Every structure is written in structure tokens, then in C-alpha cells.
């Protein structure tokens, strides 16, 4: 079983094998966060590497005031968001002026192609959503964090997390229902 206190203390003593254990334990968590926020495949891997290097550098400051997973997810989230902001490809859709009035735009030829595969279609729709919706959906459903933990990770107030989660799922459900009828 993964004992985070023991692994952290071994890493702080310079044990590389313990660091590899930590990467193995949390690589999925980091990838899920980065995957939904960053568009390019090669960037995703580079950012995941950067996250773990940052984790290693900042580990002496970690005081176990939160779960290690929450702390690592916060580093992953901040690194990915920083990349998105710096990226020339940052899209207007990532930061709409009024997120509460967000609606899906017209269907693209790409979406027409993947509609038959519902799982792929859901992922395509999520990729079109604003960054905050993508973040809460991923952290809640894939990483299985609770709303208070998502607040710790993203800094978004818990009430707003709940409202984003509700609205994002409602939008997705309505869009899929509408598209299945047509």
C-alpha cells in the first residue's frame, strides 16, 4: 500500500526510487487534469513532467495540511492553466465573458463524425467548454475529488464549483439529447 508520509520522507532523504513510486501513484491524476486543459499531445506530456519536477522541488514545503493528492492536483492545475494562458493558441472559448450564459456553438464537421461514438462525442463537447467547466468536471468525475477539495485545488469557491458542475452536466445532457433526436 502507498504510504504517502513514508514515501515523502524517503524522497526528502534523496531516495530516487521513492520519487518514482510517487510518480507512478499520481501520474494518472496529473494526466487527467492536464489532458482536459491542454490541447496538444506533446505539450501534455511535457507539462506532466514539469508538474512532477515542481512537486519534487516543493516537497520540502509540504506540511501534510491537505492530502498529497490534493496538493499535487493543485500544482498540476496551476501549471496547466499557466501554460494555457501563455499559449498563443489560448482560445476565446476558454474564458467567456459570462460563463453562466455559456451555450454550445454550432456543430462542427468533426462533431458530426464522432456523434455515433457517444463517449468520444462527450469528450469533444467537454473540450469545447470553458476552462472552469472542464476543470470541475474532470476533478469531480475522473479524479473523484469532493467539492471542498476542488475549492482547495482551484481556488474557486465551493458554491461556484457546485454551480459549474450542475450547469456543465445539464448543458451536456441537453446537447446530447438534442443531437440524438436529430
Amino acid at each position, binding site marked *: 500500500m502507498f504510504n504517502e508520509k513514508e514515501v515523502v520522507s524517503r524522497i526528502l532523504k534523496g531516495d*530516487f526510487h521513492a*520519487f*518514482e513510486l510517487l*510518480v*507512478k501513484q499520481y*501520474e*494518472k491524476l496529473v*494526466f*487527467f487534469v492536464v*489532458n482536459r486543459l491542454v490541447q496538444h*499531445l506533446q505539450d501534455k*506530456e511535457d507539462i*506532466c*513532467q514539469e508538474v*512532477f*519536477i515542481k512537486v*519534487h522541488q516543493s516537497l520540502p514545503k509540504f506540511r501534510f495540511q491537505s492530502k498529497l493528492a490534493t496538493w499535487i492536483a493543485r500544482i498540476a492545475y496551476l501549471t496547466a492553466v499557466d501554460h494555457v494562458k501563455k499559449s498563443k493558441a489560448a482560445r476565446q472559448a476558454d474564458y467567456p465573458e459570462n460563463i453562466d450564459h455559456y451555450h454550445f456553438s454550432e456543430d462542427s464537421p468533426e462533431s458530426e463524425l464522432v456523434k455515433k461514438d*457517444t*463517449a468520444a462525442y*462527450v*469528450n469533444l463537447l467537454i473540450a469545447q467548454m470553458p476552462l472552469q467547466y472542464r476543470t470541475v*468536471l474532470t476533478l469531480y*468525475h*475522473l479524479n473523484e475529488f469532493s467539492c471542498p477539495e476542488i475549492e482547495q485545488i482551484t481556488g474557486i469557491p465551493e458554491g461556484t464549483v457546485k454551480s459549474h458542475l*450542475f450547469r456543465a*452536466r*445539464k448543458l*451536456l*445532457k441537453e446537447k*446530447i*439529447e438534442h443531437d440524438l433526436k436529430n
Partner: protein
Amino acid sequence: MKKLTDEQIQALLDSELKPSGDMLSASEKQQMESYQSLFQKLNTEPEQGLPFNFVSKVSRQLQIKLKRRSDIRFNLLALFGIIAGLGMAYGILTLIDLNSGNQFLLAMLRYKWLLIFGSLILVGTLMFEQRVVEEN
């Protein structure tokens, strides 16, 4: 009976509760099924993931970074060691023989630009290398 709202259906599914079919109207049942199917898709892990050798890649990159940092520390220590050594040599020579000390100081002053440029090139190279490593 009051109809279940979207918020209530989502809350039920979040708490992994599913009311029996008899308690729900046809439209509620359909809404429940739509949300259930969506939740399943949202909980599905992406097919694409990190490469199988990701752990060793990160470990290798970290080792390179740590080695670079230790090299920089060593080179800076060496630089300070040389400066301190020259200072000590001057101090000792002055204590033994003031004239020799002065001659040593004059020699150092004659080559002051060489010493200053040498130090600047060493520090500049270290900073440049560190930046290149960080960018890569």
C-alpha cells in the same frame, strides 16, 4: 407529486441513489437515464494516456536537473575559493614581508581585467547553461 428537477436528479446520482422505477414518472425516468448515461461517460478514463516509460523519463530529467544544480554550486564554490585564496595569499605575504605583499598586489592589479573577465565568463556560462536546461 412534484416533479424531480435536474438539480435533484444530479444530487441523487452524486449520492449514488437511484429511486425505484415505480416512484418516477415516464419523463423523470427518461431524465434519470440520460443523466446516468452521461455520468458513466464522465467517469470513463480517457483511452490515451502517458507513455509507459513516463516514470523513467521524469526520473532521468530530475537527475539531470539536480546534477546541473550541484555542478553550479561546485563551480561557484570554486570561484569563491580562488578569490578567497588570492586574498589569503596577499594577507600571509603581507604578514611575512610587506614588500612581497605589495608586489603580489601589484601583479594582481596588473592582471585585474583578466581576473574580472575570467570570473564574469564563468558566471555567465553557468547562468546561460542553467537557462538552456530549464527551457528544455
